[in-house]
């Protein structure tokens, strides 16, 4: 079937198989390999993307369900000028990255949170990221990074 959707601000029209997952469309057909697969059943969050403003697991969505939506992936966070999103910058500055495999999903969950709430409490950060497993960092610096990104975003809005 043919689907139309917005992907990182661009319009995409593409032919897909009915049973294809959103994750496979992004990675294999569209070459956006920043979105990762860690478990295939919505437990690890490595495949997190933002659909119409909400963080979702792209391994549990059919590609067909993207039709008519607006999708953001990790690749869309860096501007065409190469300028990174504050969440990306903060993950680097706060040392929240180790092996990096969970990071695109983690960042998408964080971005989705900060788009809605630029002053999240620690509890709200934890609630937004509870579906993203990380095995390297122990999460401490990930929380710090999101707090830092929130303060940068608030500063930018002033």
């Amino acid at each position, binding site marked *: *079937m043919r689907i139309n959707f917005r992907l990182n601000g661009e319009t995409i029209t593409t032919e897909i198989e*009915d*049973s294809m*997952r959103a994750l496979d469309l992004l990675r294999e057909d569209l070459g956006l390999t920043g979105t990762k697969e860690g478990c*295939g*059943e*919505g*437990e690890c*969050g490595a495949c*997190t993307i933002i659909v119409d403003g*909400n*963080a*979702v*697991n792209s*391994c*549990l*969505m*059919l590609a*067909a*369900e993207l039709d008519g939506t607006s999708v953001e992936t990790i690749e869309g966070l860096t501007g065409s000028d190469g300028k990174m999103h504050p969440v990306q910058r903060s993950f680097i500055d706060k040392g929240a990255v180790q092996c990096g495999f969970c990071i695109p999903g983690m960042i998408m*969950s964080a971005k989705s949170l900060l788009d809605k709430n630029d002053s999240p409490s620690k509890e709200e950060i*934890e*609630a*937004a990221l*509870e*579906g*993203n497993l990380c095995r390297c960092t122990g999460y401490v610096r990930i929380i710090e990074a999101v707090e830092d990104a929130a303060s940068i975003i608030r500063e930018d809005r002033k």
Partner: protein
Amino acid sequence: MTFKLMIPNTEGELQQELMDDEARILAGGTDLMVQMRSGKVAPTRVVSIKKLERLKEISDLGERIRIGAAVTYSELQRSHILQEKSPILLKAIRQIGSLQIRNRGTAVGNIANASPAGDAVLAMVLSEARVEIMGPKGERHESIESFIIGPGRTTLSTGEYIRAVVIEKTDDWQSLFIKVGQRNAMCISVASIGVLRKGKEVRLAFGSVAPVVVRAHKAERFFTREGIDGTKLGEFVERCVESISPIDDVRASSWYRRQVVRGELMKIFGHPDVGGTDVT
């Protein structure tokens, strides 16, 4: 997992698609996609309800609230009616999966999936939910307790689908939801306990400790009739425990589940100052 995907534009078309025995409805997909990946189900047709706008409605019916089949957990959490009128459902939803799961998963899907561990199901059982079913023979309504008949099994027959669930408003009840899991987030209940209390009336339901989410009707009546003062408490708890029939599975043993249910009930009802501030 190879199947044909149908995306009907009307409920009439939806009914047509469902006349096939091999068809499965896709709402949030958080259960179906997992089951198809593992090979537990292998439908030849998958029918998405994403274009059926009327199934996305939450409506205030006065004494009750109607929740459409395509309403996600996150939408329920954001709904003012639910926030005000069904604290028990919101408490249960808060403990389901992760944000990503709640952004896609639906309360009606939780009913259709009929898992004994369904947290939303438990809250809906306590809310005397009625399931609104459409099918070739028209509309029918059934209480959630009789609709779910076993793990993964409901009374739904070929061609039928759940259009909505209607729950009672329970804001005048004190509510408590306890989920015993294996970690603080993203877990499946090892045992769950839901309590609604209004004066001498009480409603109790348990998850993951029987083939389906169970209401402890006998114990509820005992509570109203006899109360729980002094030696009555132990008797009341035993009646609650009689309603469960836990098994050993990958998450915990039947022994553990019984211990936990008994212990939590003693805490909730026996030590109001410690554990049960919400209900007593």
